């Protein structure tokens, strides 16, 4: 691990063509190994921020470095999990997990072994031959995350991956995401609408305000106990949720004016 941030925004602004300002002078640095959540009202540019990091969209002004280089050149270090599972329906679960390796030209036997390992990791060891339409929403998201992890990313971008799931499934996946991270470490940039989810997962929460999208506050999150399901019942967790909710509320008020 180096002192150099793995993702660094310096005064980054974004507008699409002649449209309104989406992001206004964002300055933010992620150290390797952090889990940073972005939370804020709709239209605050959280998802756009991820698109900038992944080079799906170029920065308008300012400087953005990813893994010590430009976003365009940092491809190899990144993986992305979208809101929808975005699996390819004509490939089996294993085929979907293999896809990034296939695109890299990895040979079939190696790909298969890797996919089997990853499906076991996300607790779908028997689903490898199933097609996406045979999987539930939660299972699809597990496959989608396994697909992202197959790239062994240093940085994982997650854009509201659990937003469409029910709360029970979401809680499970939150806990497991942290487990998977122990086994395959990555720096996470996580967009969410859920304060509780952000508090549970993050080492740091960035609260954003809208019109134009900007950083309202940054909150480090530390707990005295491990982040397991039991954490959700502890007062220190509630305090954090309350504190971030207040900040979010303030950010919304600020954005309206």
């Amino acid at each position: 691990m180096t002192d150099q941030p793995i993702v660094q925004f310096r005064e980054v602004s974004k507008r699409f063509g002649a449209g309104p300002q989406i992001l206004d002078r964002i300055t933010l640095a992620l150290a390797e190994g952090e889990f940073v959540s972005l939370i804020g009202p709709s239209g605050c540019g959280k998802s756009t921020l991820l698109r900038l990091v992944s080079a799906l969209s170029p920065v308008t002004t300012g400087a953005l470095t990813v893994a010590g280089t430009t976003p365009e050149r940092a491809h190899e270090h990144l993986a992305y999990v979208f809101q929808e599972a975005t699996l390819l329906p004509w490939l089996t679960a294993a085929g979907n997990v293999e896809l990034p390796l296939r695109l890299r030209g990895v040979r079939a036997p190696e790909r298969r072994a890797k996919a089997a390992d990853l499906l076991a990791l996300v607790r779908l060891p028997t689903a490898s031959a199933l097609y996406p339409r045979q999987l539930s929403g939660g299972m699809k998201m597990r496959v989608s995350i396994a697909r992202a992890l197959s790239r062994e990313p240093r940085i994982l971008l997650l854009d509201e991956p659990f937003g469409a799931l029910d709360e029970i499934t979401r809680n499970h996946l939150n806990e497991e995401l942290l487990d998977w991270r122990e086994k395959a470490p990555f720096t996470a940039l996580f967009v969410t609408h859920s304060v509780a989810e952000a508090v549970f997962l993050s080492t740091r929460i960035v609260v954003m305000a809208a019109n134009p999208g900007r950083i309202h506050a940054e909150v480090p999150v530390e707990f005295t106990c491990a982040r397991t399901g039991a954490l959700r019942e502890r007062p220190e967790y509630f305090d954090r949720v309350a504190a971030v909710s207040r900040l979010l509320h303030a950010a919304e008020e600020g954005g309206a004016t």
Partner: protein
Amino acid sequence: MNLRRVILWLSPVACGILFLGLWYGVRAATGLQSWILPTPEEILHAAWAERATLMRAAGGTALGAVGGFCVASLVGFVTALGLGGARWLRTGLYPWLLVLQMTPVIVLAPIIVLWAGPGLPGIITVTFLISYFPIVVNTTQGLLSADAPRVDLFRMYGATRLQELWLLRLPSAMPYFLAGLRIAATLAPIGAIFGEYLVGNASGGTGGLGFLVYTYNVQIKIPALFATALASCLLGFVFVAAISWLNWYVLHAWHDSFERRDR
């Protein structure tokens, strides 16, 4: 629940019986003679009497239809690859494809005989002209239908254009391509028969259902003409069944249209 099933299965039969009753009714009421409106049993009788001729003709038509259909599928697919891949080709070619589609094939018949020659080449050309368009339109639509997040995913993961085509766009287009083939499959036998009628007899005629239509008409063998219609219809069914099977074979494992529901 079972009763509903039985009714569902019997309803086409019931409709068929109703239709036959109507047929006999019209004949009885109007007193039309057999050479204008033959009875169904006269048609079946003619079909049996002419069975050797009909079978041979159906075989000839099938050859023309399959030939035209295959050429249309192949050329249509390649055209769609071009149209789906390059915007300038799409805007440039599309109006002219429409012009081709809008021109009635009957107008082109003499030109087709002149260029492709009479007999099978001409018949295949007519079949091609009739079944090409739906394949091109559907497949192009399919190639353009890969959804944005998946395209983003491929771009992010450094896919080459060829990988994007092969692993994303072609599979996305498959249901559309097959839908195009299904439309083309209903058109191809019609095209072949039409082709035989138009250009098949230019050489003196070597067979085919379209040529039989011409012959029986001249000979005023009206029950045999109806029998020819019946044979054409059966040939069409075989075609559609084959393509429906292909559709099932390619898509059943993953496509939502084959989703099994409990009820």
